């Protein structure tokens, strides 16, 4: 699973990641976050501690990839990769390596987090948010997205905004229409605050992962069903008279018999069920979280 975050420079992408990491160390509704690399863990914890004291991270100058586990009940459940970009990447042309990587990442993304400065939006500063560039980038990748993905529009610095109004989102109008028209993108808008006091921080990540983990569950179900179907098919064949003769011959020439294949398929079923079982309750909890909390939906694809 791959999460990609984009946003203009200074919008708070790295701040968000570090704050989220810090907060999810204690778990929220059973969910936690763990970096696969111990150096990343230490770095993010340190950044989170600084942010909680009002010291914000330095500007990011290059793309950096983090590998995480979404944990549930302190167990590593979903491994995922999170690509953090420097803000300037969205302003660069296709000649730039960073811009090329960003486009490639967006095409492969299972969840996209699009960051906008809520305070700038509220004060009518559309230019600094680079909304046009971000939406153009995502629109460009839409034709390549042929699987369900989630798109979270994250309005940062929400503590500096007295009230969010519909008119603030006017510049997104065309983009919302494109998302609604897309058969595969579910989108929502999430105002967040990161700093000495943080709010709503876990929601964008849980939303971004929800579609992907449900899809993962669905694929496992399909695989189990198909392996079972194949196992039964070969078992039935091996029970017939021709199957018995076939199996005798295959046994003599030391090749797998129908019965062997059926057996192997049952083993696959067993293996897949073992993968399937531990993710059921986290997926249910994630779905419950999304249902019970107030997410401002742009569209939710059924």
């Amino acid at each position: 699973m791959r999460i990609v975050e984009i946003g203009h420079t200074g919008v708070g992408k790295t701040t968000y990641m570090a704050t989220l990491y810090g907060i999810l160390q204690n778990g929220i509704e059973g969910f936690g976050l763990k970096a696969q690399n111990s150096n990343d863990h230490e770095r993010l914890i340190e950044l989170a501690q600084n942010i909680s004291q009002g010291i914000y991270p330095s500007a990011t100058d290059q793309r950096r990839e983090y590998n995480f586990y979404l944990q549930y009940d302190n167990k590593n459940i979903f491994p995922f990769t999170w690509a953090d970009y420097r803000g300037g990447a969205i302003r660069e042309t296709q000649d730039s390596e960073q811009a090329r990587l960003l486009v490639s990442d967006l095409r492969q993304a299972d969840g996209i987090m699009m960051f906008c400065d809520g305070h700038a939006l509220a004060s009518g500063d559309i230019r600094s948010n680079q909304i046009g560039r971000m939406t153009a980038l995502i629109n460009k990748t839409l034709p390549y997205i042929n699987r369900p993905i989630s798109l979270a529009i994250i309005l940062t610095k929400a503590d500096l905004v007295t009230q969010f109004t519909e008119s603030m989102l006017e510049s997104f109008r065309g983009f919302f229409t494109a998302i609604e028209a897309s058969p595969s993108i579910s989108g929502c808008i999430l105002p967040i605050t990161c700093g000495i006091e943080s709010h709503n921080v876990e929601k964008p990540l849980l939303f971004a992962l929800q579609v992907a983990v449900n899809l993962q569950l669905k694929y496992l179900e399909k695989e189990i069903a198909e392996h079972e179907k194949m196992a039964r098919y070969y078992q039935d064949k091996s029970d017939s008279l021709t199957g018995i003769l076939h199996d005798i011959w295959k046994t003599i020439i030391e090749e797998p018999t129908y019965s062997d294949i059926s057996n192997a398929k049952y083993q696959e079923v067993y293996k897949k069920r073992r993968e399937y079982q531990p993710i059921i309750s986290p997926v249910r909890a994630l779905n419950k979280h999304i249902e019970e909390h107030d997410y401002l939906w742009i569209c939710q694809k059924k």
Partner: protein
Amino acid sequence: MSKCSAIVYGRTYEVDFRFIALPENFTDDDKKWIDNYIKVTTRTAEKLTNNPRFSIVKNSQYCVFGVICLARDLHNVIEETKDKYDRSLYGFFGYVIPVNENVEAIHCFLEPNIDLFKPLYNYILEQWNTRKKLSSPIRVSYNEKLGKYGEINNQNYLDIDYKKIRYNTSSEKEIYLYPSSSEYNHFLWSMTIDNILKDSVNSVSLCLNLTNKSDLENAPFLNVTVNGINSFEIYTKESKIETEKYIPNNDFTEKNDCTDRVLEKSSQPSIQKGKINQNVDKNPSIYLFIILFIIFSGLAFSIIFTTIKNLSILSNNVIIVIFFISLLLSALLAFYLAKIKQKPTNQSKSSQSSTENKTFPDKLKPKNKNTISNSKQTKSKNPFDEF
């Protein structure tokens, strides 16, 4: 006279990171070459406070002496060292010396000294108020002035116990790591200068004071001092860091491929030689079959021989035919019984799975009876059918 040019990579008040200054003759390849080094030194930038990272990089054409540091280490006006979002700026500031033209300039860099790089901050200030990223950086000529910096005390230069240090000049697949201490920094810096002056090696690179080993991913450096290690180590570039555990990414493309493979098989169920999964477990009931076969064939022979004594009218050929038929029947019977015996094993595995399945909520039970096409057509309120 010493002639140098400059490289400055950083950001200004409003515009994001980019090359702000480059030597006038730098090509795109040269830019890529130095960019690969700079991108390593800028990692974990929050650790740059009181910890500038010096580097020396040389190829067949250029030798670059540089430092990654906070802007405030080079410039005193604090307002001009922070960006629009009040974040402390940092950047790479370096001098470029053409290798074949003037070795003299190298003598200005016998020790890592941040003061040498202070004048380069002027390039940042020159671009400070720009609101748009310029299409190309400032092109800096090889200017004599750049090389004239301070008298550096180089008494300790070349006073090195070379036996203490292993210096990498050849193995591009490895990085030699040393603890980040003033002693090692001094030794390695001096050895690097020594190698450049000797001109015996084409490619030389050193970076001092990196934060941790994970910042070395895809690093082109050959020698590095790094925090968090206590003794000399060799980092192999192919393998990731030992502490990092790679977990294969179960993305949907893979899943999709997997499902597609299953679907492909189900549509072509016939077995083809050599295409069967190599990991298929051989049926253990073969041993049961052999035992049963021996028992049945033994029984058949004993019956035939005791009966034939009384039926001497039968010809030898008929007896041979009866013998083989009984052998075949024994084999079939044995195989059938062995198969029946095996069935419960499979079913017990399957039932074990279905026992687990019983704990699943109804909505989450796999729809075993549905084919994929069926499940696509099924309309359900199941939340997992949304996709």
